């Protein structure tokens, strides 16, 4: 708590110090390595307009998350009485995080989201791995058409389908159960994953499969033993993005499930942590931030792979 208190109460000075420190370190390191301090300084100056643009964009992108972080640890008095949003006047507190985890259904939301996400990813892989391979290698023109159809299906927004889906879910007796989401979510994760996986499969040189066929493997074996292991990085990034798609989904989750303890993160947090007109701001902001950071890191980690799959699927397809 003391470290956190120190960091939060001196937030701005620390931020400026960290920034200047990093810039200084870089200049120092480069100057030592290449031995030309003035040249390095001139380079930094010349690049500064570029960095200014980057900083402005980053500022806008980060603003809400920054505010979430800054306000999570504020006491009620600090938050509401003559508010000064950007500084801490009272000792930071962990009380609201405690409330979030122990007095709300937040842990239930996390459990439900993970459960739904994992189940959907498994179904998605079972359906889309073979289908994507078929699109990439096995089928001719009609496969191509099926691929375009899939692409179009991915573009059908949930707002067009949620009313009949709701009816079907009620008829199947799945209302208020995460099972309903497990059944329905593959309707958008499968087209998405097929499209991405198809790109990764196309990147595997066909000669390797031919060689496997010559060695006496059949097509199915060639797929299982040659193509799948070689496209493992792509498959992992597909898993990550399919999982986060389920994490993002809002409308189906809102419509199908009314029971608090069965709701998922994206629906539960904005509906259940707000009681009528009463907003529990610090727990709300914390709840959002806790999801945002890991997903953001995962996206950044797998972004290059996504871009690659997209390029292979769309451009060379």
């Amino acid at each position, binding site marked *: 708590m003391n470290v956190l208190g120190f960091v939060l109460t001196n937030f701005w000075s620390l931020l400026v110090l960290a920034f200047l420190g*990093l810039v200084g370190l*870089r200049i120092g390191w480069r100057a030592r390595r290449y031995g030309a301090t003035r040249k390095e300084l001139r380079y930094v100056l010349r690049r500064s307009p*570029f*960095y200014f*643009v*980057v900083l402005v*964009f*980053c500022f806008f*992108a980060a*603003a*809400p*998350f920054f505010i*979430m972080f800054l306000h999570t640890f504020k006491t009620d008095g600090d938050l*509401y009485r003559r*508010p000064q*949003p950007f500084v801490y006047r009272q000792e930071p507190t962990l009380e609201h995080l405690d409330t979030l985890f122990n007095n709300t259904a937040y842990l239930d939301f996390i459990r439900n989201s993970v459960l739904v996400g994992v189940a959907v990813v498994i179904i998605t892989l079972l*359906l889309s791995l*073979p*289908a994507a391979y078929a*699109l990439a*290698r*096995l*089928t001719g023109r009609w*496969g191509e058409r099926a691929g375009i159809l*899939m692409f*179009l*299906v991915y573009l*059908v*927004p949930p*707002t067009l*389908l949620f*009313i*009949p889906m709701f*009816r079907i879910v009620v008829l199947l007796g799945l209302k208020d159960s995460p099972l309903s989401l497990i059944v329905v979510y593959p*309707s958008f994760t499968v087209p998405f994953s097929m499209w991405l996986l198809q790109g990764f499969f196309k990147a595997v040189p066909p000669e390797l499969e031919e060689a496997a066929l010559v060695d006496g493997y*059949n*097509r*199915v*074996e060639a797929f*299982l033993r040659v193509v799948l292991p070689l496209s493992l990085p792509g498959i992992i990034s597909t898993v990550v993005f399919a999982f986060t798609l389920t994490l993002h989904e*809002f*409308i189906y989750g*809102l419509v199908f499930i009314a029971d608090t303890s069965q709701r998922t*993160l994206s629906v539960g*947090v*904005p509906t259940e942590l707000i009681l009528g007109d009463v907003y529990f701001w610090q727990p*709300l902001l914390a*709840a*959002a931030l806790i*999801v*945002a950071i890991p*997903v*953001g890191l995962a*996206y*950044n980690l797998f*972004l290059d792979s*996504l*871009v690659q799959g*997209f390029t292979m699927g*769309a451009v060379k397809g």
Partner: protein
Amino acid sequence: MGRLSLGSFPLDNRRLIGALFLTPALLYIVLLVGFPFILSIAFGFSDVTVGNTDLSFVGFRNFLAVWENDIFRQVFETTIRFTLISQVFILIFANILAVIFTQDFTGKWFARFIFILPWATPVSLAMIGWLWMLDTKYSSIDYLLLQLGLLGRGGLLSDNRNLFWLAAPDLAQISVIFVQVWRMTPLATVILMAGLSSIPTDILDQAEVDGSRFMRTLLQIKLPLILPIMVIALLFSMITMFGDMTVVYVLTRGGPVDYTRVLGLYSFQVGIEGGNLAQGAAISLFAFPLLLAMAIFMLRTASRAEVR
């Protein structure tokens, strides 16, 4: 893993295996998207409600009732306006950012992480941050403007200490558009990055050999080459935004009055909250011809550009 064999089943027949591999996925999609879609049309022509489950045919009554409804007209117009205005900004920002992030610079990893957050975060959760920043009383944006002397007594923008972002019609609309641009620019950027990185390097090398400067390479070589991809990016963000109700659901619930009510939200409010499934379905169906037209138009533009 042992050798795979299923008796005399031809595991080497390309077409057969292809069909076998593709069918489960296609079947699932047809069942889960095709069937509800047809049901949605059936609902539109019926008088189904949450209480009354039998589908009796009522012709075009729902569609006519919806079309003659003034609220619907306004909702429809708002949806189109929001979508079009935000696309302009998304395309501008996405182009700038795609060029930035396809270069190497110190701190790129961190900058990319920050800039990807709006897209990575589940929309409904990101909106909580905006809801707090645009709060009627505690808005941190208002606080900044107040410190700059733009708000408060004698302030340039308002004599009041607050702007009431989500309670004033104009500002609420501006806020919603701004937030949509904020959350969808990264997706468009990533698609454009894919386009930029797919340009064959020999073309760029040739340009460099010919002494082409950065701006010229960008404007005369890179941008024309990624035009089809740009169209796909546009298609994605337009359709996402046209069908979105999450942003306004969390931020305004369509208010003040009807100023930020969009099609998806209206269909939800009539169909689910109001219990009139038939009319809710009819409302969302009005989006379909527009979505289809957008998709076909853009796909055609994209494929035509590719041929050239």
